[in-house]
């Protein structure tokens, strides 16, 4: 993930629910209320680029990392909530990831860096493998059969990474076909 990677930057802009652990009089605008200060325990939704470091940096002077107190505490974003994860567990192909967030896997990777969730990790891995196979299947068939209608729902639910996968698989198939035709001549 490069500093200049546009998808990484957009993933960083995903909003995450979090709660401030202390009163901050000057940050009312984060809760759309600039005239009043931000009270502790107010639920706000902040982009990841802001929330991550606020959750990681410690506000008290302490050499022991165990009792360091961060400025705010993070929660799992809705795209990775229990409902979505259990839906993915039931059938990875039936969930439109794009409706959750455009950068599902990017967001999940970032969140799993912060949270210890081996089960979610396993579910997402299985999700990607299952969906990648399905994506490749659709990429090969796209434009060739009248089967498109069935796949349309699935394809419009692809998130950004899967889309690029689809595009590459599709282009690869096309180039391969063109090459084969050239050989016969």
């Amino acid at each position, binding site marked *: 993930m490069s500093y200049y990677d546009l998808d990484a930057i957009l993933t960083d*802009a995903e909003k995450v629910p979090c709660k401030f652990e202390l009163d901050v009089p*000057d940050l009312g605008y984060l809760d759309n209320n600039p005239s009043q200060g931000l009270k502790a325990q107010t639920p706000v939704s902040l982009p990841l680029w802001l929330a991550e470091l606020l959750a990681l940096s410690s*506000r008290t002077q302490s050499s022991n990392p165990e009792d360091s107190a961060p400025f705010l505490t993070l929660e799992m974003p809705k795209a990775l909530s229990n409902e979505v994860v259990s839906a993915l567990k039931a059938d990875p192909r039936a969930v439109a990831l794009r409706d959750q967030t455009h950068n599902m896997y990017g967001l999940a990777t970032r969140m799993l860096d912060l949270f210890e969730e081996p089960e979610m990790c396993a579910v997402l891995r299985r999700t990607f493998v299952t969906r990648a196979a399905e994506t490749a299947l659709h990429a090969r068939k796209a434009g060739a059969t009248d089967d498109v209608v069935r796949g349309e729902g699935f394809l419009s639910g692809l998130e950004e990474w899967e889309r690029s996968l689809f595009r590459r698989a599709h282009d690869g198939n096309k180039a391969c076909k063109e090459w084969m035709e050239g050989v016969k001549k």
Partner: protein
Amino acid sequence: MYGDLGNKLVHHAKRAQNLAHLPPYQTELVRAVTREVRDLEKDLADMLESFEGGFDPHADQAKSCTMLVNHLSIRRNKRCLLAYHRTRTDKLEELVWKGYDLVDLPGQQVSSNSGSNLAATDTSSSSLSPQEEDYVRQYSDLLAAYKGQWTDIDLTGSLEPPRDLFIDVRVLKDAGEIQTEYGAITLTKNSQFYVRQGDVERLIAQGYLQKLG
């Protein structure tokens, strides 16, 4: 909220990545983001000044939280700005390698509709910022100097092996006289020629000629 404008800029860059041409430079947006950074910087400096050098981040936690938020917003904006410009320069370099005449093209547009509407040509004259035009010019010079080392190989030539040595071309724009092995030809608009592909490859890439058949 801080950082929203930068986000917009990145969305612009993302869209530009999938386009063949380069969309206009977002002068206003870039200016707004830099202004935001400057405002934040000023806030930070003011806050630091109030401590008169004796700043202890753990003593006033609310203040230090505000400052951290400000600082992160600045960093975020910087990343957005850099990514936006990097995407554009990548694209510009690609276009230079392909042989598009980036600096000349807008100039021709201006001359073709000057007189009729001067105000409009000013805004539509170029999708590049002045700095970007400079960049393209210098990059083209660099590329030309690099290519100059090998006179028998055209590094920016087409990688497709030609099927025929000679091709039919139609002239789309007046390109003046060119010298070939078989003498000079004057390329006037809408005329057709049967010429050696190697002689006109550059002109096709620049959009002066169109290959027929």
